[in-house]
């Protein structure tokens, strides 16, 4: 263990002397100090806090990620290229220990920086919240919508395949009637696209009902509905103020006498629909929230939400599956949620440092950086391509399947994007953290680490030409 700690220590010292690392450190310091100080927000108090959190955390994550990749590649390859590693491996220290120590060293230094930066941002946000003269109403909104950890409940999705099959049957009947050629596979794909589009679209005057399940029955705190609708098309530009009428399902009970007739008990028999008196005005293209009173949860943990498109210009609304609308329920404090975000970022840095070390175990510094960045880009692009439902030709199919195969090996780093969770007061679930750890650290990153260690152990260090 003495050798392990000695290499970690020397990794620290080498890191601090790296000019690129020093530059990134400066950028990090600027991000941490200047972003929260210079942000003006969207004019609202909760918007200010949200944007402060979002931008600061995103900047920290970006700078530290870049630094992790760069430094890990540099630390690993420079020792080999300068022959300093000759001196180390001619001592009784296995190369596996050297690899692990260097990885631990790079990760630890970034972990320490992450904790420092995150702590500065956290206390800065708290300080701003205390210092600024926000009204009680604004503070309450911040407490309920931003500086909180709320569990997210997504609406029960319709079975798109069933809907698509229904549409397909209609098309087939029509084709038979008109004696037209019918390509079942192609038609089914189109039906699926149509079914998705129908679900995503809310026509003017149309009533849409969302159902939520598995909510805690005994919950006495208010629920928050978070939604984002786009007017005319899913595009952040050309969005405007619009109107919608919201409602909810009130659980309905009847009194039921017991068999002996001495006592009565309530029996849930369904929901009564209640609509608001007037349409609400809201901004399309951004998230909005509505508080709901407690008591909407049925005895089987179900909640129903109703909505009518009341746009004055009679435009359709579009929503994305990831936007819900989501039902939010406070379960944790802001500090707890923030800490979870830092843990997820730590996991991200751990993976990036490991990938850098694995690549630089056998490659030179610039090649290793290029390989890691390419790997991460493949991860990002493959996610989108594998999720496509539109195919215009053979190229699309090839790209689709290549992406599917790539996703078995690459890590889509956008899955580690948690700044929105924190900024929106959404709880980073332990299940999500576990999933990230299992699927991306254990099943994707760890095999690469092991491969890197194996190659490092087998590498003929004497073949490297000294620089």
């Amino acid at each position, binding site marked *: 263990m003495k050798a392990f700690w*000695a290499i970690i*220590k020397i990794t620290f*010292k080498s890191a601090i002397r790296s000019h690129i690392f020093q530059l990134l450190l400066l950028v990090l310091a600027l991000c941490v100090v200047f972003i929260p100080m210079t942000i003006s927000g969207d004019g609202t108090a909760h918007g200010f806090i949200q944007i402060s959190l979002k931008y600061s955390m995103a900047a920290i994550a970006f700078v530290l990620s870049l630094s992790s990749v760069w430094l890990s590649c540099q630390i690993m390859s420079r020792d080999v290229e300068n022959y300093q590693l000759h001196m180390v491996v001619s001592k009784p220290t296995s190369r596996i220990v050297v690899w692990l120590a260097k990885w631990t060293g790079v990760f630890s230094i970034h972990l320490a920086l992450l904790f420092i930066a995150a702590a500065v941002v956290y206390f800065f946000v708290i300080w701003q919240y205390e210092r600024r003269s926000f009204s009680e109403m604004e503070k309450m909104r911040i407490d309920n919508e931003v500086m909180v950890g709320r569990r997210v409940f997504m609406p029960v999705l319709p079975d798109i395949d069933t809907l698509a099959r229904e549409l397909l049957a209609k098309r087939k009947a029509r084709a038979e009637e008109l004696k037209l050629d019918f390509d079942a596979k192609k038609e089914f794909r189109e039906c699926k696209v149509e079914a998705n589009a129908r679900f995503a679209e809310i026509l003017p005057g149309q009533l849409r009902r969302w159902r939520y399940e598995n909510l805690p029955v005994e919950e006495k705190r208010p629920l928050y509905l978070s939604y984002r609708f786009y007017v005319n098309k899913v595009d952040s530009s050309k969005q405007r103020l619009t109107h919608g009428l919201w409602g909810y399902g009130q659980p309905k009970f009847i009194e039921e006498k017991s068999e002996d007739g001495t006592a009565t008990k309530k029996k849930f028999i369904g929901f009564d629909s209640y609509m608001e008196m007037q349409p609400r005005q809201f901004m399309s293209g951004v998230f909005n929230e509505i508080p709901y009173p407690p008591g909407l949860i049925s005895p089987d943990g179900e909640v129903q939400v109703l909505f009518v498109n009341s746009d004055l210009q009679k435009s359709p609304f579009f929503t994305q599956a990831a936007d819900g609308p989501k039902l939010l329920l406070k379960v944790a404090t802001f500090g707890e949620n923030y800490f979870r975000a830092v843990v997820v970022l730590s996991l991200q840095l751990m993976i990036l440092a490991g990938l850098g070390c694995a690549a630089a175990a056998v490659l030179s510094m610039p090649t290793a950086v290029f390989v890691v960045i390419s790997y991460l880009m493949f991860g990002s692009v493959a996610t989108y391509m594998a999720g496509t439902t539109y195919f215009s030709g053979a190229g699309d199919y090839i790209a689709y399947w290549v992406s599917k195969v790539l996703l078995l090996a690459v890590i889509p780093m956008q899955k580690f994007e948690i700044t929105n969770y924190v900024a929106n007061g959404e709880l980073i679930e332990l299940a999500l953290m576990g999933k990230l750890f299992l699927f991306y650290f254990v099943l994707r990153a760890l095999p690469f680490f092991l491969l890197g260690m194996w190659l490092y152990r087998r590498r*003929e260090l004497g073949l490297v030409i000294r620089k």
Partner: protein
Amino acid sequence: MTENKALIVKSVGLTKIFRDFWNRPKARAVNDIDFEVREGEVLGLLGPNGSGKSTTVKMILGLLYPSGGALSVFGRSPRAVEIKKNIGYLPEESYLYKHLTAIETLDFFGSLFNLSKIERRQRSEQLLDMVGLSHVRRRPVGEFSKGMARRIGLAQAMINDPDFLILDEPTSGLDPIGCKEVKDLILLLKKRGKTVLITSHLLSDVEDVCDRAIILYGGKIRAEGSLNKLLLDTDASRITMPLLKPEVTAKVIKILRENLEDENFTIDHPRRTLEEFFLDVVNQAKADSVETSGVTSGGRIANFLSDEDKKSSAVLQELLGKEQEQPSEDESKRKKKKDAEEAEKRKTEVENAKIQELTSEKTVEAEKEEKPKVDENLSDADEKLKDLLGGK
């Protein structure tokens, strides 16, 4: 006798072929060589640039893998981590972490040997003292001159008190005092039963300390054996004696002429090497307390490398054991006398060994230097003799 000693390195048909990107053979750096390094010997690996010395050393250290043949170090694969506990390595250039200070460098390499903090500190201090860098212990090694870097490199190679020391050009960049200290150190290590493998271009250095040499050229062994065997010229004789009177010299020449017939011979004054002269001058300067800003001559062997450490522990043990039972005055006297006798005996042994060593080396050196020249005739010899005798 050597054959009975344990094998440290054994190479059979050792071959190293460097290949290009497409795995096509590019160069055969080492070509089917067989050699052995046995416990307690000092072996010189000699050869011009590109002869395969460094490749061989790198294979012994497990930095390169053989393309053919077999190589074992301490009976195991050179890649085995365990064997490295017993190896010390000084590379041909300073591959140290430049931002670390001298003391940090030794501490770091000590940690790689899993030495305790106290042990690391003690050894580092002793080694710095030994290589004459105590006064720059807090200076980053990146600021060191080449000679100082060699010294700190040498110190790190000995932090684990290795049984097998691999020294790649150990004296390159060192001043004559440093060279002598390194050579003395190698001889001391040899005396302690350590095995040393030296590669060097400075052949005189190798000659001073090596028992055996292997000369490589083009990746093959061209000559191998003990230095006496390789360098002794049995076709010539040399007699060294105090300065002769002119008439005695004339008699000697007469006798030689009568016996050597037409063969050439030379008579001249023995000449000191420049190194010997230089060391005398510096030692004189030291005796006169002249100040220097460079490396202070170390030379004091680190306790853990010499027997002093063990002796002091033994004395300590003895003292502790005798705390309860104080020896009588007679016993103390006897003990002192015995110790003095032993010390005297050790001193004599060392001196004898040194005289023997110096005598044999000088003989070889003189024989080499004074090889008869074919074109020198007797009249030349007469001229020289006249010069020596002051033109008489």
